[in-house]
């Protein structure tokens, strides 16, 4: 018995192997197999590639805008040696002086002058000179200067953060000349600044004659002092608020973890346009250190996606009726397992009376879909800030909670590809299921911040946001939206 069993094995094997050498058409797969393979091997690459190309393009755009801001900064901000503000701390007429003396010589002068100052006053002056105990307000400067009363024609170098001046509202960007202020009767302190290339300035306080002061702001080499960004509020532990809009381009990442061929078979072809999203959000940022900050907020966004697909459905002539035009018409409930969800809709198929169609026949159903999702995002991110002259760049990454507010799908059948079919139309919009109301996501990106006016600054930069959990999940398909955003907004520092 054993040899005979092996004999049938040999016979079957031989017949099948012989067939491998001969050409025939029964063993040729349909053309749709390659279409499906091509879609599957290229879709993932296209999805990933498109997002990163969009992100890279937006990054280049942002850097270009940033460079434009940097190049135009001298024109937008006060020029060197321009007297730009008046501090109301002196009742004396304002005295002006040309820009700063050399720091080294000033320091040597200071040493000799300090010897003339009473001991308690010298300590105060020295502390001010030896930053970080810098004056924090014009009141501090006033207090300090009052301690210097009686020291005529002396110059005391101080290190003052520009933020003091900003916070007190003394640098308004308007030019004030000595002549304009020469008749001022109120207490005033003239500030002379060198803003160009200044990452931090030292301030010379000169006491002239009786009660007249002026300050000159000089550039101090960056390497010698702690860098302070020139944006409005560089202090730590500061809060700021921002509003932004985020137009986005993206796609959906479709994962088929446990491919069920029977389900996928009916989808012959699917072409998606890029998904478009527009978000609007508010956020609060807290600066933990000079470099690190944390930001949280809420964003409302609307996601739109148009696509076309071709499905193969099994059409039955059973139930056909003849309509007024003499054509055969059939209405039936269509359940399609698509990559948008499990669709359930009524379809009307109309064919001419003389068309040849079997009782049961596969027909191609071409569909156009328009999906709209409204999502509420609650992002939280950690940020690393990098000063760029008077501006700032931030790299950030974080997580987001995504709440699906509304999900709708307009689902329309278009002309069938089959010659027998005159018209195919849907009776009602599809019912969607298996979408999740909540999913966690992630985001990362780069943000540039440019001073705009006082405590306000402009924000712009690209980011990528995606889903860690699928927004749609059934047995066969997982869908993760993946978007590249261009965020533009305004930040106000408290």
């Amino acid at each position: 018995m054993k040899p005979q069993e092996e004999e049938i094995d040999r016979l079957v094997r031989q017949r099948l192997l012989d067939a491998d050498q001969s050409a025939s058409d029964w063993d040729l797969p349909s053309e749709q197999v390659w279409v499906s393979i091509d879609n599957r091997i290229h879709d993932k690459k296209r999805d990933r590639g498109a997002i990163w190309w969009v992100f890279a393009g937006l990054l280049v755009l942002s850097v270009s805008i940033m460079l434009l801001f940097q190049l135009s900064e001298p024109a937008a901000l006060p020029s060197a040696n321009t007297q730009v503000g008046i501090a109301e701390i002196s009742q004396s007429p304002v005295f002006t002086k040309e820009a700063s003396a050399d720091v080294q010589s000033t320091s040597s002068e200071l040493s000799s002058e300090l010897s003339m100052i009473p001991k308690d006053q010298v300590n105060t002056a020295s502390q001010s000179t030896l930053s970080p105990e810098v004056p924090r307000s014009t009141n501090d400067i006033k207090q300090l200067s009052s301690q210097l009363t009686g020291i005529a024609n002396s110059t005391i170098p101080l290190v003052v953060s520009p933020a003091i001046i900003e916070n007190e509202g003394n640098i308004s960007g308007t030019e004030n000349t000595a002549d304009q202020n020469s008749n001022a009767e109120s207490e005033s302190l003239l500030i002379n600044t060198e803003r160009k290339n200044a990452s931090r300035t030292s301030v010379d306080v000169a006491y002239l004659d009786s009660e007249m002061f002026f300050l000159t702001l000089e550039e101090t080499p960056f390497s010698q002092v702690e860098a302070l960004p020139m944006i409005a509020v560089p202090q730590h532990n500061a809060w700021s608020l921002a509003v932004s809009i985020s137009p986005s381009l993206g796609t959906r990442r479709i994962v088929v973890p446990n491919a069920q061929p029977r389900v996928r078979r009916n989808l012959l072809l699917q072409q998606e346009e890029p998904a478009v999203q527009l978000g609007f959000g508010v956020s609060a940022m807290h600066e933990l250190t000079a470099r690190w900050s944390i930001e949280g907020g809420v964003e409302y966004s609307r996601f739109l996606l148009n696509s076309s697909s071709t499905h193969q459905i099994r059409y039955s002539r059973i139930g056909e009726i003849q309509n007024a035009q003499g054509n055969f018409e059939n209405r039936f409930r269509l359940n399609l397992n698509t990559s948008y969800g499990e669709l359930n809709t009524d379809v009307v198929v109309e064919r001419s009376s003389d068309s040849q169609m079997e009782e049961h026949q596969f027909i191609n159903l071409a569909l156009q879909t328009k999906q709209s999702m409204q999502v509420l995002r609650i992002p939280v991110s950690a940020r690393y800030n990098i000063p760029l002259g008077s501006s700032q760049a931030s790299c950030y990454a974080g997580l987001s909670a995504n709440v699906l507010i509304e999900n709708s799908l307009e689902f329309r059948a278009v002309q069938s590809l089959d010659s027998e079919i005159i018209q195919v139309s849907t009776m009602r919009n599809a019912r969607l299921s298996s979408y999740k109301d909540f999913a966690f996501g992630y985001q990362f990106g780069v943000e540039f911040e440019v001073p705009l006016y006082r405590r306000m600054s402009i924000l712009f930069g690209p980011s990528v946001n995606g889903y860690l959990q699928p927004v749609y999940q059934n047995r066969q398909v997982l869908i993760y939206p993946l978007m590249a955003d261009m965020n533009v907004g305004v930040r106000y520092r408290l």
Partner: protein
Amino acid sequence: MHPDTQLVQACLRGDSASQRLLYERYKSPMFRICLRYGGSKQDAEDFLQDGFVRVFKDLQQYRMEGPLGAWIRKVVINSILQQLRKRRIVYSDTELSDLEGLHMTEEDIPGNLDAEILTRYIQALPDGYRTVFNMFVIEGFTHQEIAEALSINVGTSKSQLSKARGMLRSWLATIHSPESI
């Protein structure tokens, strides 16, 4: 240089035309394999689709050492077996004693029984019989290898093969013409 080197490298670069060319070159023999493992042509097309997606995904693992066709065949068969494992086929151990008594020689197989008809007979076998028969008879797996690949016992593999042979013998013995199928 390996004759398929340029084609493989073009496929790895993502060139669609080359991928299509590779598919066209090997689709027919691979589809025959899929037809034997699938219960229908549609099943076979699904196997072929998954198999070639796996081929293009894993193509960088091909070392240009053996024939490309043999490597593709191996990948496609592994892909088919993976799909079959997911289907959770029930490998019944019930005996088919009435079929075991049938013997068959080459003369018993009709001369006009071509590969297409024979393939349809194989397709008509229950899933478990068909899978084991294909793996043992056509691909040359041992029962131990079949047992490991399908997560079944060696005895179950032998039993499934025996039943598959018996069923095929009984069908082929009653054949008079291909039209009777």
